[in-house]
C-alpha cells in the first residue's frame, strides 16, 4: 500500500473455515497494519456502505507478506456478511491497529495460556508474542466439540505443551479448560509467571476465580460492543477495579482479577433484539 495512491483496498487473500463453517479465518492484505500491529491489538471492520463497524482482534500478522489474519465466529449479520466474502473480494473499511498492545517481557517462569472457542485466535497472537520474546508457553485450549476446536496445530507449534479439552469428550480431556487449569495450577503453580485467559466471558470469569485462589496474575481480553474503536464514543466501557475504562483504548487486555464480568455480560446484551432483527432481515 502506498499512502498517496488514493483509496486503499483490503483484499481477502485466503479463506479457511472451521466448525462446520461457523468460524472463519481470513487473511487480508493490509501491509501497513501488518507492519505496525503488535499482539493484543485489534482492527475495526466495516464490510459495506451500509455496514456497521465491528472490532476483530488480530489473530496473526505477517510483516513480510503484508497480511493480517482475522478469525471470527458467525454470530450476527455483519459476521455473516464478512463470512460471505470469498478469496479475492475486498473489505470496504479496515482500521487499525487499535488498542493498547500487550506489554510483552521475558520472564524466568512460564506463561500459561488458556483459550476457549474463537478466543483461541486472539490468544494465539499474544501467546506467540510471549514465546517469540523467549518465554516458555504452556497452552490449554478447549471447545464444545472437536469440530469447533480451532488453531490447535498453530498453538502446538510454539507451545512447550498443549492440553486439549472438549465439552463432549470428542478430543482430549472430557470437560472444561477450567478443570485443567485448576489441576495444572495445583500441581505446578510455582512454575508460572502468569495466566492468559481468553474466550467467552463466562470462561474468563471462571478462570479468574481459579487463578485468584492461587494469587496468579491473569490477563484477559475483553470484547464489549464498540463503534469507532478510537476512544471517541465510550460504547465499550468496562469496569476495572471499580473505575470505568474504555476497552478500545485502555484495553482490550486487562487484569482479569479487576474486571467486573457480570457488567460486561449485561452490556453485551444491549442490542440483542436489534441484532436478531438485523440477522433475521438479512436471511429473508
Amino acid at each position, binding site marked *: 500500500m502506498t499512502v*498517496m495512491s488514493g483509496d486503499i483496498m483490503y483484499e481477502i487473500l485466503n479463506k479457511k473455515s472451521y466448525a462446520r463453517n461457523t468460524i472463519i479465518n481470513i487473511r487480508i492484505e493490509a501491509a501497513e497494519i501488518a507492519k505496525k500491529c503488535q499482539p493484543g491489538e485489534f482492527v475495526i471492520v466495516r464490510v459495506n456502505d*451500509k455496514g456497521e463497524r465491528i472490532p476483530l482482534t488480530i489473530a496473526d500478522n505477517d510483516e513480510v507478506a503484508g497480511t493480517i489474519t482475522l478469525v471470527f465466529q458467525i454470530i450476527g449479520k455483519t459476521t455473516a456478511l464478512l463470512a460471505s466474502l470469498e478469496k479475492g473480494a475486498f473489505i470496504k473499511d479496515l482500521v*487499525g491497529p487499535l488498542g493498547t498492545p500487550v506489554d510483552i517481557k521475558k520472564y524466568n517462569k512460564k506463561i500459561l495460556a488458556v483459550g476457549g472457542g474463537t478466543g483461541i485466535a486472539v490468544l494465539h497472537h499474544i501467546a506467540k508474542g510471549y514465546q517469540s520474546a523467549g518465554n516458555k508457553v504452556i497452552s490449554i485450549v478447549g471447545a464444545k466439540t472437536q469440530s469447533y476446536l480451532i488453531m490447535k496445530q498453530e498453538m502446538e507449534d510454539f507451545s512447550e505443551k498443549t492440553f486439549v479439552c472438549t465439552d463432549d469428550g470428542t478430543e482430549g480431556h472430557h470437560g472444561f479448560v477450567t478443570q485443567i487449569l485448576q489441576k495444572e495450577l495445583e500441581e505446578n503453580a510455582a512454575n508460572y509467571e502468569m495466566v492468559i485467559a481468553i474466550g467467552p466471558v463466562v470462561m474468563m470469569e471462571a478462570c479468574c476465580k481459579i487463578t485468584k485462589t492461587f494469587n496468579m496474575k491473569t490477563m484477559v481480553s475483553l470484547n464489549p460492543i464498540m463503534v469507532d474503536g478510537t*476512544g*471517541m464514543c465510550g*460504547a465499550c*466501557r*468496562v469496569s476495572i477495579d471499580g473505575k470505568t475504562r474504555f476497552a478500545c483504548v485502555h484495553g482490550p487486555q486487562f487484569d482479569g482479577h479487576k474486571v467486573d464480568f457480570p457488567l460486561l455480560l*449485561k452490556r453485551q446484551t444491549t442490542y440483542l433484539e436489534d441484532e436478531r*432483527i438485523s440477522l433475521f432481515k438479512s436471511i429473508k
Partner: protein
Amino acid sequence: MFNQIEPKYIKYGSYLHLYCPHCKKTLNIEKKEDKYIHINIIYKGKSGYLNLSPYLNIFEVESDLPLKEGDILDDVICPHCKNSLLVKDHPCDDCKTPEVAEFIVSAFSKLIPFYICTKYGCTWHGLTKRDEKIIKIKIPRQDMIEQDPKLRIFNFNEVPYGYSSELAVIEASRCMQCTNPKCIEGCPVAIDIPEFIRLVHEEKFVEAARKIKETNALPAITGRVCPQETQCEAKCILGLYDEPVAIGRLERFVADFERNTNAVEIPPKKKPTNKKVAIVGSGPAGLTVAADLVQLGHGVTIFEALHEPGGVLTYGIPDFRLPQKIVTSEMNYLKNLGVKIILNSIIGKLYTVDELLNKMGFDAIFIAVGAGLPIFMNIEGENLNNIFSANEYLTRINLMQAYKFPDYDTPAPRARKVAVMGGGNVTMDCARTALRMGAEESVVIYRRSEKEMPARNEEIHHAVEEGVKFEFLTNPIKYIGNDKGFITEIECIRMRLGEPDQSGRRRPIPIDGSNIVFDFDMAVIAIGAGPNPIILDSTPDLPLNKWGYIIANDKTGKTKKEKVWSGGDIVTGAATVISAMGAGKQAAKSIDEFLRNKK
C-alpha cells in the same frame, strides 16, 4: 399604472421589492411560478385587491374589482397592517390626480420611497426629486421558512428551508454598507461581509458566494452552524437600534444557490511549491487549513480516522441541522481543489507524527483531531445499558445512519422516555434526535438555569418548538436499573445558583434533601468532551497543558514541536466549528510562511 420610470434610477424590467412604509412588511408575493405585488384597494366603497406585476414597465394587473381605465381608486391599503398608503400632498406628476400611493422600494443598496398613481391606467409612477435624499427605513429581519415542528419530529430533514432569492435580496437591502463595518471584526475568518451582501442585493448570488470563498471555503456549513448571534451579527451596527442583518442566513443562501445552480468553480491555484503538508483530522480546522494551503500551491494530505471525512460535521451534527449531502459536496469541492483525503488512518497508531515528518517526507503537520473523548459523570449506575455518551448516540445515528436500521446494520438506540444531561448545542442535538427516533418524551436535565445554557438560542427555540422538555437546576446523582442491566430510573437532586465561578456563570449548589426520582429508559450524557489521547500518547515531545490539550501559539497555531502546528478543539477544548476554522486560517498562514522561507 405601472409604466415608466426614469432609466437613470431603475432599469426597465427590473424586479421590484416593495414594502409598506408603515409596517415595513414586503408586499411581494409568490404563487408557484407567478410573482405579484399584492395590495388591498377600495374603489367606489368596495374593497378588493390588486396584484401588480413586480417587473417594472410590465403592465399586468389582476383585481377582483371591475376596474377600467381612468377610474381613480379611493384608497390603497397595506394587506398586513391595514394602513392607508395614500399621500395627500403629492399629486401625480403626469395626470395631476391629487393622490398617489407611497411604497418603499429597495434599490441601489438603499431604501427609497416609490410612488404609484391612483388613477387606473395612468402611466406615471416612480421616484420624485425629493427622493434623492435617502431615507433610512426599517425593514424587519426576514425569517426563513421552516418545517412545521409537528411534522419535522418525524423526519431528519433540515428544519429551515432557507431564503428564496427574493427574501435574500430584501434581507440584503437591510445592510447599511457601513464605511467602517464592525461585522468583519466579529468573524473569526474575517469574511468581507458588506461586500458579499452588496452582491446579494444586486442579485449577483454566485459572485457573492465566491467573495465568501475567498476567505471561507465552507460557507454552506458555517452559514448553518456558526453562532452568528455572538459573532458577526453581534457586531452589526444595525443591531444597535434594530435586529442585526441576518448574515448567517445570507451566507447559507448564497452557498446553496451556488451549489444548486451548479455554479461551483474551482478557483485558480498558485503554482506548485513541491512542499507537502499532512493534516491530521478532517474536521472544520483541518479542512480550512487544507483548503488554504492547497490553493497556495502546497500538496495537502488529510488523514482521517473514521471511514467518512468531515469529523464532527459528519459524526456529530445531525442531518436536521446540517444535511450530510452538504458536507459531502463541500468535501468534493476540497478534493477537486486537489486535497487528498486518506480515510481509516489513525495517526498515532498506523503512523506516528515523527514517521510522517521523517519517513514519509511531509514538510509540516497540522494536528486537528478535535475533542474526541466523551466525559462521563462517574456516578453510580452510569454503565447501565441504554446510557450513552452524546458521541456514541450521535455517531450511531449520524455517521452510521442507525436511524435507517435495519436497512443499515448499526443498531439504533430507541426508548420511550429519554433524558439528556447538559445544556449545550450537543445536548439539544441529542434531545431533538431522540424525538425523531420515536421517543414519547425527551427531557433535558441541566444543573444551572435556562439563562446559563451555553446552547444557541436558535437551537433551544427549535427544541422547545418540537416538544423537548427541560428540568433546570437539576443534576443526576444515580442511575437505577433493572435486573437485566437496563436503566429504568434516574435519581436527581435539585440545585440552586451560588456565586459566579471562573466561567462567569453562577455555580450550581445542590439543595440537601431535594432528591427526586424520574422514570427514564434511556439517558444520553452530553456534558462535554476531552482530548483523545491516541495521537498525544504517541508523540511524547508535544507539550500539553494541564487539561491535556496541545499548547499552541494562539496567533499562529505553532506548537512547541518543530514542524508541527495545531488548532481547533484539541487546543482550545470543545468549542465551535467556526472558531476551529479561525484557528485553521491562522495556522495555514503560518505554515505557508514557514514553507516559503524553507529552502
